[in-house]
């Protein structure tokens, strides 16, 4: 993935870009679609200047009848904003906004905003950006006196607060505040964070107070501090550029910075995207469901790629929670495409969270049109996430209004690219947004933290859900992995190959189960594997292992209760266990004793055997909710 400065979610500009931008500027019938196409490339500063000239030349011919919405923005600053100003009109087209910039000379903020007869007051501005630098607010020099530091910050907050009032009351425009980017050097080092008068601490204190005390509901905020952090302060700040021309950031940062302002103005004008349309194969999951089948999909705990796809689904679920509508557009048979949603245990997204599900063999552009029509939203409200470069190209060609992020070959990059593109920029979280995400409230209640007094309360507060399944093809890879790499919590340390594990799946004399554990902090994945040999009077433990991550969660007791119940129902009288010591498994030497087994024998090599009488065994009450999956039920076992 290329550097954030290069806007890596956009295609690079084609060789004829500058010629096309010049042609657009000269055209007597300027083509809006061509303008959109040009703006969708990753323009550098000089490209943006050129497209900006075209916008200025054509602003009147587009005007109100175009699909672009005008926004006249005034900028007051403590530094040189000319380059950002020059980049904004070209950037605006990308976000559906025709931006006209009125730039105050630097250092003229108060004069323009507080004086009713100022130029700004006479220009009918839609909004005013107050862009200040840490140096202008007195944060550049260390203040060793904490009180002086607090006063410096307060003075800065008061100053910006009165500028903001000027925008609201004198200019009567939308107030656009900006967080302050801290300097990239420390004076003490890490201690700067704890010295109230360090440049960094004063900047951070100011930003916190800006958001709490100055920003009002209808104001917009450009979070330049976060943007600079994303980029890296060393890359963002440019000492040489500051000394030469009072540049607030490196010239290389200008396209990205302008894009963040552009997307914010777009969002304020209702131009943010509303719906994420997702491809399935190799986008939501690894592999092709039609070819690889459920067992062949790469999704979840088993692999780096699988984790990346799960993480992407979680991110998308968060987008849905905040009100982004989800749709599927996949070249597949409908039933095949829905199968993972219904049966794959690692899927995060659920079928009922998808507003429109289009799985067929038509071209994607036609499907996207239909999705927009079904949802009754514009085609320019759609974002298409698709790993396939040819599909992306086809959609860009036919429907330039759809945003189609460029992706790398690596699914681990997808969240970053989708998030950094800012398609779903929001200016606030409305009641409507939250209502759209139906289970938002229930979820936030479940997550609210409670203080707990003892272990039992703690375990209950975890809201654990264990999913117990017999061995099956979907879990096989992870089962084999656990069997072959678990050393500590492993009673017998018997290793089995994938073929052997597969054979266990249908062996009527093996009772095999795997356990997944989720809690309110997330999904721990598969954490325990158990194999018992089924006999008529006694069941004997072949393998019992568990991930040490979930020690002390009473999972062993749950597993025992499950096995004991199945064995009792099958008519067995007792369970037998063996502990085979290794260099690494001393942890479980007393495992069977702790579960109430009686020792039968101890052998010379240290191995011991244990038995549990099923007639006197009583299963304990556990702070874990249990879900039985794939026909794992005592009834099925009793036929063995």
């Amino acid at each position: 993935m290329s550097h954030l400065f290069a806007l890596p979610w956009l295609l690079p500009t084609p060789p004829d870009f500058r010629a096309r931008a010049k042609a657009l500027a000269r055209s007597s019938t300027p083509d809006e679609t061509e303008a959109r196409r040009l703006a969708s490339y990753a323009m550098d500063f000089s490209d943006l200047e050129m497209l900006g000239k075209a916008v200025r030349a054509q602003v009147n011919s587009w005007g109100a009848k175009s699909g672009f919405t005008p926004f006249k923005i005034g900028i007051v600053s403590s530094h040189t904003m000319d380059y950002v100003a020059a980049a904004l009109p070209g950037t605006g087209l990308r976000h559906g906004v025709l931006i006209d910039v009125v730039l105050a000379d630097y250092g003229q903020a108060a004069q323009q905003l507080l004086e009713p007869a100022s130029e700004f007051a006479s220009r009918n501005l839609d909004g005013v950006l107050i862009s200040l630098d840490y140096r202008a607010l007195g944060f550049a020099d260390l203040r060793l006196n904490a009180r002086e530091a607090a006063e410096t910050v307060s003075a800065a907050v008061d100053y910006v607060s009165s500028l903001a009032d000027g925008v609201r009351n004198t200019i009567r425009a939308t107030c656009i505040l900006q967080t302050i980017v801290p300097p990239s050097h420390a004076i003490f080092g890490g201690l700067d964070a704890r010295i109230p008068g360090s440049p960094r601490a004063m900047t951070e204190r100011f930003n916190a107070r800006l958001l709490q005390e100055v920003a009002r509901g209808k104001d917009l905020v450009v979070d330049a501090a976060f943007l600079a952090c994303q980029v890296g302060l060393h890359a963002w700040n440019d000492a040489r550029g500051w000394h030469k021309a009072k540049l607030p950031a490196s010239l290389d940062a200008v396209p990205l910075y302008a894009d963040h302002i552009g997307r914010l103005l777009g969002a304020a004008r209702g131009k943010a995207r509303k719906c994420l349309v997702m491809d399935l194969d190799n986008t939501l999951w690894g592999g092709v469901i039609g070819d690889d089948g459920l067992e062949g999909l790469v999704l979840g705990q088993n692999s780096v790629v699988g984790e990346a796809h799960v993480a992407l689904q979680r991110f998308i679920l968060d987008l849905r929670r905040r009100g982004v509508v989800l749709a599927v557009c996949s070249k597949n048979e409908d039933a095949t495409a829905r199968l993972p949603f219904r049966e794959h245990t690692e899927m995060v997204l659920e079928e009922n969270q998808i507003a429109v599900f289009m799985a067929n063999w038509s071209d994607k552009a036609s499907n996207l049109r239909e999705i927009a029509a079904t949802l009754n939203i514009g085609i320019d409200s759609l974002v298409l996430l698709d790993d396939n470069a040819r599909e992306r190209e086809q959609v860009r060609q036919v429907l330039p209004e759809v945003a189609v992020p460029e992706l790398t070959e690596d699914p681990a990059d997808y969240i970053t690219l989708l998030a950094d593109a800012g398609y779903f920029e929001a200016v606030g979280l409305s009641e409507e947004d939250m209502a759209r995400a139906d289970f938002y409230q229930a979820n936030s209640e479940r997550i609210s933290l409670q203080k707990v007094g003892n272990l039992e309360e703690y375990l209950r507060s975890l809201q654990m859900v264990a999913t117990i399944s017999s061995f099956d093809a979907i879990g096989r890879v992870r089962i084999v992995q656990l069997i072959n790499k678990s050393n500590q919590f492993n009673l017998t340390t018997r290793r089995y190959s994938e073929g052997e594990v597969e054979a266990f799946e249908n062996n009527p004399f093996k009772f095999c189960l795997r356990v997944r554990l989720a809690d309110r902090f997330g999904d721990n994945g598969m954490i325990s594997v158990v194999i018992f040999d089924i006999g008529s009077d006694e069941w004997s433990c072949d393998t019992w292992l568990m991930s040490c991550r979930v020690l002390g969660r009473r999972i062993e007791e749950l597993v025992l209760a499950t096995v004991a119940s199945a064995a009792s129902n099958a008519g067995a009288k007792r369970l037998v266990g063996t502990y085979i010591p290794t260099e690494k498994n001393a942890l479980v030497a007393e495992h069977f004793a702790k579960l109430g087994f009686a020792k039968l024998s101890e052998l010379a090599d240290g191995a011991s055997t244990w038995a549990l009488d099923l007639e006197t065994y009583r299963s304990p009450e556990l702070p874990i909710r249990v879900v039985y999956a794939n026909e794992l039920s005592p009834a099925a076992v009793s036929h063995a």
Partner: protein
Amino acid sequence: MTLIVTVLRIDAKPEGKPTMLRAVGEARLIAIMRDTFDDDELVYRDDLTADDVIGWDSLSHVPFLATVEKSFGFRFTSAEIDSLKNIGELLDVILRRATI
């Protein structure tokens, strides 16, 4: 870039003398200037300054230098930026600093 690299190895000569390398540098620099200052008529001469070029002002100077840096693959020091008096001096710096 490749062309320059090859030429430099065969033809590196002391600064100031018109060499093949310098000619290539001139051509690339003037191409950047024509594009940046939007003037296709610009012709290279060593003593060309901002006063001679419409569109070359303190504002366009910064992106101009940035384009030169990107195109020739090096970064001006602050002292070099301070010292530049005309295009000939700029080309001297480029020929001294361009990475090979």
